[in-house]
């Protein structure tokens, strides 16, 4: 998952990189007057393309910056609510690009340095030559050698400054088990460099052996709502549309994603993505009730859509847990469309029909989706 810039920069600072001395403002009127201009005001959302979306503004003085903060806070930027702005003195120097990433295709680390940064670097990455980007083994020595290779063309003082920053990034990347650390722009002066931005993608699979990162995520339960939920609950629930009309009770990441796509294609608005992992319910409706509570918190929801393909899990057991959970939280009595298929599904549908005759039961997913979409319209 992508961290906000302010958290990325906090990690940079821990590993010896120089970052502008900024403040994080979370309330209108919260910008201290002591910060002299010119200033950068940057919306803190975990998404790329903030500049193009109008979330990064250069302001001549403190008053202009305060106005920019007030305008940005509370807006939505690239699908995320802006709950904080990072306000920093404008850094100067030549704009470069430096990154350390996992190259998933190669199954290796990749170090990239470009003497000219800018917002379009990502789109050219594929066409870079070995003087700019190198693949290497995932260890400190190989990565240091790759860093030296991609900075070989620089004058000695500049090379030393970039390599010092790069070494910090490499250690950060390895010790925190990251997937990407990117600095774009990296401001280079004759003998030092300053990280103008920070893009850090961490690996949630490694989070339980990275307590500092875990604490960083848990400290921002609103900004990192989806990740916090995954860490504290042990499964994936992602809210897609706060005004969505179909609450989804689904299992399996791929099928759940596809259902969302197909419902949207039918003109419906799903509230959420969910991979509840039926195999982990272990006879308790608690997890189902948690999800129903989150769904019920959105008044726009008009229908619940349950889709469970049980390869291994027994549908009879799941159906009874579903009935228990719906008894605990009926979500204002909105209609329930349930499609159960697989292991024990026929018996499960029969048992559910007896206990909850109001639930609309389906064997066929196409018919179930059409019904859910119609009820939500």
């Amino acid at each position, binding site marked *: 998952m992508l961290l906000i810039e302010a958290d990325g920069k906090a990690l940079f600072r821990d590993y010896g990189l120089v970052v502008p001395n900024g403040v994080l403002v979370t309330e209108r009127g919260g910008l201290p007057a002591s910060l002299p201009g010119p200033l950068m005001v940057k919306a803190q959302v975990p*998404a*790329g393309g903030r500049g193009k979306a109008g979330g990064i503004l250069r302001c001549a003085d403190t008053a202009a910056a305060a106005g920019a903060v007030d305008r940005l806070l509370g807006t939505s930027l690239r699908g995320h609510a802006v709950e904080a702005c990072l306000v920093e003195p404008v850094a100067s120097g030549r704009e470069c690009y430096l990154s350390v990433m*996992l190259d998933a295709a190669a199954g290796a680390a990749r170090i990239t340095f470009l003497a000219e940064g800018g917002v379009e670097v990502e789109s050219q990455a594929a066409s870079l030559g070995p003087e700019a980007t190198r693949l290497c083994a995932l260890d400190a020595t190989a990565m240091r050698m790759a860093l030296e290779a991609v900075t070989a063309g620089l004058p000695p003082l500049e090379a030393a400054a970039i390599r010092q920053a790069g070494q910090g990034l490499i250690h950060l990347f390895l010790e925190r088990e990251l997937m990407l650390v990117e600095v774009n722009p990296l401001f280079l002066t004759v003998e030092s460099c300053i990280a103008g931005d920070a893009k850090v993608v961490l690996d949630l699979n490694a989070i339980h052996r990275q307590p500092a990162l875990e604490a960083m995520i848990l400290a921002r339960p609103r900004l990192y709502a989806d990740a916090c939920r995954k860490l504290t609950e042990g499964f994936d629930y992602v809210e897609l549309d706060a005004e969505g009309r179909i609450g989804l009770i689904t299992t399996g*990441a791929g099928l759940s994603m596809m259902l969302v796509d197909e419902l949207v294609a039918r003109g419906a608005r799903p509230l959420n993505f969910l991979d509840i992992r039926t195999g982990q319910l272990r006879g308790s409706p608690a997890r189902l009730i948690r999800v129903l509570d989150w769904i019920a918190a959105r008044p726009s929801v008009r229908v619940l859509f349950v889709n469970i*393909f049980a390869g291994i899990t027994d549908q009879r057991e799941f159906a009874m847990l579903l009935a228990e959970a719906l008894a605990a939280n009926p979500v204002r009595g909105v209609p329930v469309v349930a499609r159960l298929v697989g292991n024990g599904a026929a018996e499960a549908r029969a048992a559910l029909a007896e206990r909850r005759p109001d639930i609309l039961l389906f064997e066929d997913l196409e018919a179930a989706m059409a019904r859910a979409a119609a009820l939500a319209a």
Partner: protein
Amino acid sequence: MNHPLASLSRATPVLVQGASGRMGRRHMLLMRDYGTRIVAGTSAREAGGSIEGIPLFAGCAEAVAATGAIASVCMVPPLEVLAAATEAIAAGIRLIVTIAEGVPVHDAVRLRGLARAQGAIWLGASTPGCAIPGQVKLGFLPDVALRPGPVALLTKSGTLSYEVGYRLAGIGLGQSLWIGVGGDAVKGTRFAELLPVLAASAATEAVVLIGEVGGTEEEEFAAALSRAPLGRPVLVLLAGREAKEGVAMGHAGALTYGGMGSLASKAASLATAGVEVCGSMQALVDRCAALLGRRG
């Protein structure tokens, strides 16, 4: 051909690592019920004992020496996968299937490097497994969707492939082989690396590839297919059109940031390679029926 997935059959001797755990025990017996030749399990706790006639060993080296296992299904928790798979490969296992969700990506990079250096094939980090329907399954693909037939099914997702496999099986179109590569960012075997296995599969009349948003695996597959065409139709379904940027949608690999890994990029590359990208599950099933005919 000397690829362990191309020679996988009901005769392949299979080891289960973590055999005495809750998941390991259950799936070991389900695999055996399906027809898989399970010859051994490993268990630190119950070494020397057995589970329903399957002998348990303390480690892979003893298990392989005693039984000749050449494939392993590794059913240990995610943070233990690297060590367990390393042990299996060192013991001479040629095909290793890891099931656990949540293997750290840096561990996956190390394991991928190790498997390649030793000439072993690794499916995972997190895969529902693979199968030659009617003969053998490694992992927990649901029997209700497995049926021998003409379609080679390659997939990142478990559940979405179950749904598609189930619908296809329902119109008589079963699978020649079914391989889950997993939804992880870094994995043991990528779609493109399976092309030689597909080319060698005489029973395969068409390929269905189930991809999803994130990464560049579908693009690599398209490029490799352009270089070495299969001469058989390839149909693709892509999930995650509505995925939220910067958040992994259940699968660590299904993470987009910037333009990388977008569905538009994948669909464009695949179309260039002559692959049909289908807009929905039903559209894919209908195209398969049109190309191959419904079969009783």
